[in-house]
């Protein structure tokens, strides 16, 4: 993410990683997680229904939400519930009876761990037609995805998720408008993202608190600082966000949770390591060596290239160079974007 030449592709992969959650602690095989991220990079800006289908039978997801052990005789409900609650529709937009129905229709997928693929095994599948989300005859992954794609809750749910992420808003008028765009494009994610960016240009966005990983990505990009993997991992663990290790199936909590004391402390440690490793000709480090804090704000890419009086006073008191740069990276102005 730091050195990418396709930032939007990676930005979307990161978004879907936090949305279609799998975690390496249960998946165990790192390669399956990497393959899943590749799936997000490949299809993260395409049409939603094929993405959802690919996620449903993705080997890492099959392991993480127990599809890999779900049989027609004993369907496992884990994925069936979460695909409706967390991935596509939201609480209140499905019934309890849809959970076992979806589990039966999705049964029979097996993961070959040695090669990292998923196979459909007919004899482990329950092909009985189910009534699922109000549709009859649902019996396999394609009919499950089609039923989900027919729900009116899908467009506002996904539009709301992306609006919260990119615009920091849950405004119902904005989300409603984005949902219409999304639905009328046959759930094309690029169309939705384009509409979101246009809404942002039009001033519909609000400031959001940067999560530790994107904060660190930005800090490294603007300072050129490179920190040792061990330091990075320890810092992100203390900050509460390690890629591929979200805490549970809902992903990271986000928002003001990133102002928690553990995150604040860890961010300071990471900021210090980043600033210490910035190359001497980096514009931000050069600016931090001088006394023009507005120039520092500009070189850090702050949207409004000014610090508050409080931050300016702290920068004044800091030693010029890496310490001042590290403080700027911890400043409220840099953490809130």
């Amino acid at each position, binding site marked *: 993410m730091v050195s990418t030449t396709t930032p939007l592709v990676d930005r979307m992969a990161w978004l879907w990683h936090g949305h279609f959650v799998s975690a390496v602690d249960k998946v165990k095989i790192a390669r399956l997680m990497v393959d899943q991220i590749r799936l997000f990079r490949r299809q993260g800006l395409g049409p939603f229904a094929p993405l959802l289908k690919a996620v449903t039978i993705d080997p890492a997801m099959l392991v993480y939400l127990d599809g890999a052990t779900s049989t027609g005789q004993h369907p496992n409900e884990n994925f069936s519930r979460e695909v409706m609650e967390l991935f596509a529709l939201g609480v209140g937009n499905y019934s309890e009876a849809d959970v076992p129905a979806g589990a039966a229709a999705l049964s029979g997928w097996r993961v070959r761990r040695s090669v990292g693929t998923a196979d459909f095994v007919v004899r482990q599948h329950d092909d009985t037609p189910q009534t699922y989300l109000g549709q009859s005859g649902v019996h396999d992954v394609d009919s499950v995805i089609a039923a989900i794609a027919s729900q009116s809750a899908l467009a506002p749910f996904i539009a709301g998720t992306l609006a919260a992420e990119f615009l920091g808003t849950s405004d119902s008028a904005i989300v409603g408008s984005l949902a219409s765009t999304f639905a009328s494009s046959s759930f094309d994610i690029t169309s939705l993202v384009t509409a979101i960016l246009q809404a942002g240009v039009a001033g519909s966005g609000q400031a959001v608190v940067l999560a530790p990983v994107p904060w660190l990505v930005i800090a490294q990009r603007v300072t050129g600082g490179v920190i040792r993997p061990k330091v990075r991992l*320890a810092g992100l663990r203390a900050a509460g966000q390690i890629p591929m290790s979200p805490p549970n199936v809902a992903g990271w909590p986000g928002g003001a949770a990133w102002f*928690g004391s553990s995150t604040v402390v860890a961010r300071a440690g990471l900021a210090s390591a980043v600033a210490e490793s910035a190359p001497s000709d980096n514009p931000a480090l050069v600016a931090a060596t001088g006394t023009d804090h507005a120039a520092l704000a500009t070189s850090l890419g702050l949207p409004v290239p000014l610090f508050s009086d409080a931050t300016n006073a702290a920068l004044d*008191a800091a030693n010029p160079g890496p310490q001042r740069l590290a403080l700027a990276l911890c400043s409220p102005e840099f953490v809130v974007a």
Partner: protein
Amino acid sequence: MLSRRKFIQLGAGSAVTIALSGCSTSSKLGRPAAPASPSSSSSSSSTIPQPLVAGGQRTLVIVQLNGGNDGLNSLVPADGRYRDARPTLAIPEAELVALKGMNEWSLHPQLAPLSKYWDAGQVNFLPGIGFSDPNHSHFVSLDRWWRADDLTAPTGWLGRSITDGAVKPLYATALGSAAPMLIGDHYQPAVVLQPASFTFPKTIPGDRLQTMTSPLSHDPLLALAQRSLASTIEAVASFATVKDSNVSDSGGDVPDREGGFDLVEGLDVAARLVIGDVGARIVVVSVGGFDTHSNQLATHKVLYDDLAKGIDGFLTTVAAAGRADETLLVTTSEFGRRVGENASGGFDHGAGGLSMMFGPMVVGGVLTTVDLGNQLDGDVRPVLDPRTMYTACLDWIGADAAAALGKRYDELNLIAV
């Protein structure tokens, strides 16, 4: 507003700005992750000041088992229907740990270190605890537990009992992810995920950071960042006095446990907070791993071993410091699991679960009854509102239970104050 310029750049074709404008992860469940409004100008005028802690040093420790702990394989019923429903996952009778004088229930073998508290009358078990009209969603259920079933409330059930904004920064501390239960109108809990590294780098002195915290910005989000920085600086200073400098964070050893610590480590930190002179009166330790849809038998051996050793170690440390009489420990989990097993060697989400309360002050025994002949769609039917336990906990720390919960829940007497 702030991101407007970035979006304009985007419109001009600068793709790089997307990455720079931040991959923020917002709350996808649409609930506030923390109160966003600055409380510098309080809207609720305080009534008669109450003593925060009636018993002076009384302390409450909550152990949250994230994922939905299977109560029926923790405290195992003698009811034959238990074995009928669990042909491969019932705990073999020969392995069960008997509870003296109790025929209906036994303990999971890994929970054996806890049986001595039963013998001493210092533990009660609440099988079937859970809200009526249960929801199988982790997140709805957790929210109901955290907010005492008031899902519109921005505050947690314990946080809203903290009416004095001037308490110490570590007064209510979350070790792990359960901070939402501690969020109050007047209080932001301390959150510690990695105890050994909960300190600022030497290269950034705390007084430099302190300078950044005032005056407060007019922008609510920037002001929240400043206030959290200020309270963190205080919390770090207090925490330094109880830290065990010989312990290093476990790092990659336990990647599946949130915050990187298991309960043995988390409750060790909790014990030092309780017995240290840092004003910590509410400590929540949370760990994950209890969402056992698959491979439960092997998973539980590890989890329950950690649970029992963690609780036993905590109670032993607190007792050695002469603080046992003042310290109540309770366990919570968002729900129990199905009565019947699935084909993956586990159990799907259920309803009624299990809570345990430890301490010399508790009314000992198995205080609720679960009837496996009267299930709720294959789940343990909830028989005790969690707010009954909350009432006891709030009473214990001298908080106003009726104010925090809307009313008191006195269905059962759980502690003998």
